[in-house]
């Protein structure tokens, strides 16, 4: 049992810390969020140079063979720096999914490109009526003479506007909420019949709704087993969730630092407000929440890639639920303790808070994951009793 980061991980974090201080300060970040692209192409190239974009892939595909903890180390800094680049979508979610489930030829074709910063992919797995349920797939995949034809709508596909490919879930059998019958397709951005409606998100990134109208797909663009893709998608999303948990940790840490600093400097009635006991105790609660958040992020990082779905789900849903709640508490209190300064655009506190909120709303909020955790507990408890 060892809770220390390795020398390499610490060095990586230090590099990112310097990068943020030098190239990604708050003003720069604000202008990037307002730019048409919504992030820094230059930063993306720098990530490639640092090896971040190939971090979780085997060396044979141009990667560094990194672990979930390596991703956690990176994502903690992504949170602190409020970095806007589509790291989770491309590197963790889609790249990770291809690494775990794609045919060797696809991995050889795409993973080195991702690692080199030349390719982005976005996951189009959620539909409006399904809310956070990945099994809810009304989009259809119909067998064609050669390959498949996809028709349907995918909503709020994160980082879609800059993506070169999409991973799209569609159904060729079963009812629209069945776990079986779902396949996953690699769809080119410029595929005929694919339309995007792009927009910015509340925390500065970009997303789009996708409309597929009879989009033709080759057979070799099917990822994983046809009609049995749900477990593959769920595992990839679980890894994405673990990454978001670490990002939330970075933000919670940054907000606590900012708030503590504010309490020590802001004066009211002739004294620093940090001398008021009610605020001291609040800050102590925020400290505790951050420590507990770190523990949950560790659990998620280590279990995210697990093969056994029940164990993985317990860890991932547990972490996402807990961190969703803890981060909501810290975010709301950081704003509250900053007073009016907490609700203005010109200070980073409001941006941290918005990003934390959007992390909670992504891939299932705290309530969704608490329910998943709780329902797993039922199975376990009844199993233990019988």
């Amino acid at each position, binding site marked *: 049992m060892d809770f220390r980061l390795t020398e390499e991980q610490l060095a990586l974090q230090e590099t990112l810390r310097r990068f943020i201080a030098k190239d990604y300060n708050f003003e720069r970040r604000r202008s990037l969020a307002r730019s048409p692209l919504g992030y820094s192409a230059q930063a993306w190239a720098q990530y490639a140079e640092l090896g971040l974009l190939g971090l979780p892939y085997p060396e044979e595909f141009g990667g560094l063979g990194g672990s979930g903890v390596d991703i956690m180390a990176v994502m903690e800094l992504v949170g602190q720096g409020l970095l806007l680049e589509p790291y989770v979508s491309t590197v963790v979610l889609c790249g990770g999914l291809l690494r775990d489930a794609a045919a060797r030829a696809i991995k050889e074709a795409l993973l080195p490109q991702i690692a080199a910063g030349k390719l982005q992919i976005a996951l189009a797995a959620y539909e409006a009526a399904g809310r956070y349920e990945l099994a809810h797939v009304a989009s259809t995949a119909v067998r064609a003479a050669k390959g498949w034809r996809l028709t349907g709508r995918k909503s709020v596909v994160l980082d879609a506007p800059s993506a070169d490919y999409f991973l799209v879930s569609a159904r060729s059998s079963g009812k629209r909420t069945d776990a079986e019958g779902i396949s996953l397709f690699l769809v080119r951005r410029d595929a005929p019949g694919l339309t995007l409606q792009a927009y910015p998100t509340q925390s500065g990134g970009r997303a789009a709704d996708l409309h597929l109208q009879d989009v033709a797909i080759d057979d070799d663009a099917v990822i994983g087993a046809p009609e049995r893709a749900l477990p593959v998608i769920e595992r990839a999303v679980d890894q994405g969730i673990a990454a978001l948990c670490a990002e939330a940790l970075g933000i919670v840490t940054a907000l606590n630092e900012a708030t503590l600093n504010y309490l020590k400097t802001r004066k*009211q009635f002739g004294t620093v407000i940090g001398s008021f006991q009610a605020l001291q105790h609040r800050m102590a609660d925020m400290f505790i929440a951050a420590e507990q958040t770190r523990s949950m992020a560790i659990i998620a990082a280590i279990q995210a890639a697990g093969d056994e779905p029940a164990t993985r789900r317990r860890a991932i849903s547990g972490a996402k639920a807990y961190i969703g709640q803890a981060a909501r508490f810290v975010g709301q209190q950081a704003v509250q303790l900053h007073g009016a300064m907490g609700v203005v655009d010109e200070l980073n506190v409001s941006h941290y808070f918005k990003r934390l909120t959007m992390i909670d709303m992504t891939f299932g909020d705290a309530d969704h994951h608490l329910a998943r955790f709780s329902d797993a507990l039922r199975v376990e408890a009844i199993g233990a009793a019988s």
Partner: protein
Amino acid sequence: MNLNYTAAEEAFRAEVRAFLEAELPADIRSKVRLGRRMQKDDLVRWQKILYRRGWGAGMWPQRYGGADWSVVEQHIFDEEAAAAGAPPQIAFALRMVAPVLMSFATAAQQNYFLPRIICGEDWWCQGYSEPGSGSDLASLRTSAVREGAHYRVTGQKTWNTLGQYADWIFCLVRTSSDARPQQGISFLLIDMKSPGITVRPIITIDGEHEINDIFFDNVQVPVENLVGEENKGWTYAKFLLSHERTNNAGIGNCKRALKRLKEIATRQSQNGRPLIEDSRFRDRIAQVELELMALEITNLRVLSAVSTESRAPGPEVSLLKIKGSEIIQQLAELQMHALGHDALPYLREALEVDWVPAPLLADHYAAFAPPLTGQYFNYRKTTIYAGSTEIQKNIISKLVLGL
């Protein structure tokens, strides 16, 4: 003890409802219901309509053109207005500066300003907070130096709400530094068109322009615009705060938001079924509804006591502010959560009244969705402004509990 309204009150409610049904413009109602961006004209137009009906200022005395409503009548009006989708009236004018004018201003000041307020002619904003002087208001530094028939005002006010629309600002200014900070403050009325005033927008967390910094650079203010006595402004400021408090709970607004939340949860889907069928999400709604059920009665109990005892609301109204602000925050939070991933898009243009969603969006992104996330962010202010929750608990602790 009974919770029933009298026949007269019920009749009044019917009258209010009929009036709202007939007179509230459809475009304004729609903006309020959909949370679209309001313009100055919307609010002024509505004030003028109310004025024509004789309801420009419900609780003002009749001698100033008010309707002389009881607290219960005002409560009924607020509740019906909120339910109908009427916008709020401008509290800074009607509930804040006006009571001060009525109690402390000269007849000339009253005769000039009050009619212009009630008919919607003048828009008022507030100049209280300064950088470094928020909760600790008495430490304010904006100075007003008497020079013959004028004061020369220099300084900065901040967290000013909707000053970009304002014709007038009422300001606390420092006219003396000799004694305790509270004793050198005066209450000045300043024409926003005066040379030397600069309004600088402060963009809030939701990307909107609702508040401002206001800079005063040697602004000349006629001495006739002093309210009451020089250096007695702190008294008027405290008097004003007690009036600000009377609608602290915001019950009508909360009720509308709760109803809206239920509609949203009924229309949003989860795995193909209405979200409201998820007992867990529903329990969250239920929990807030219980707080609101209790607060509605608590609010009426406080207002009744105030009215029965013919006194100004006391420190016990701090609880209405604390609970009311928490409830509206929780409702906004649940409205956002009901959206699921649809909480993520940030569509600035969707807050315009004439927004038509792109066809690809329209098939799932409901008309109610665009403002909800920004509203959740924005409403974090409710536990901060007008006396933060922490300040309100200090008040309860000291003035109610004697700690």
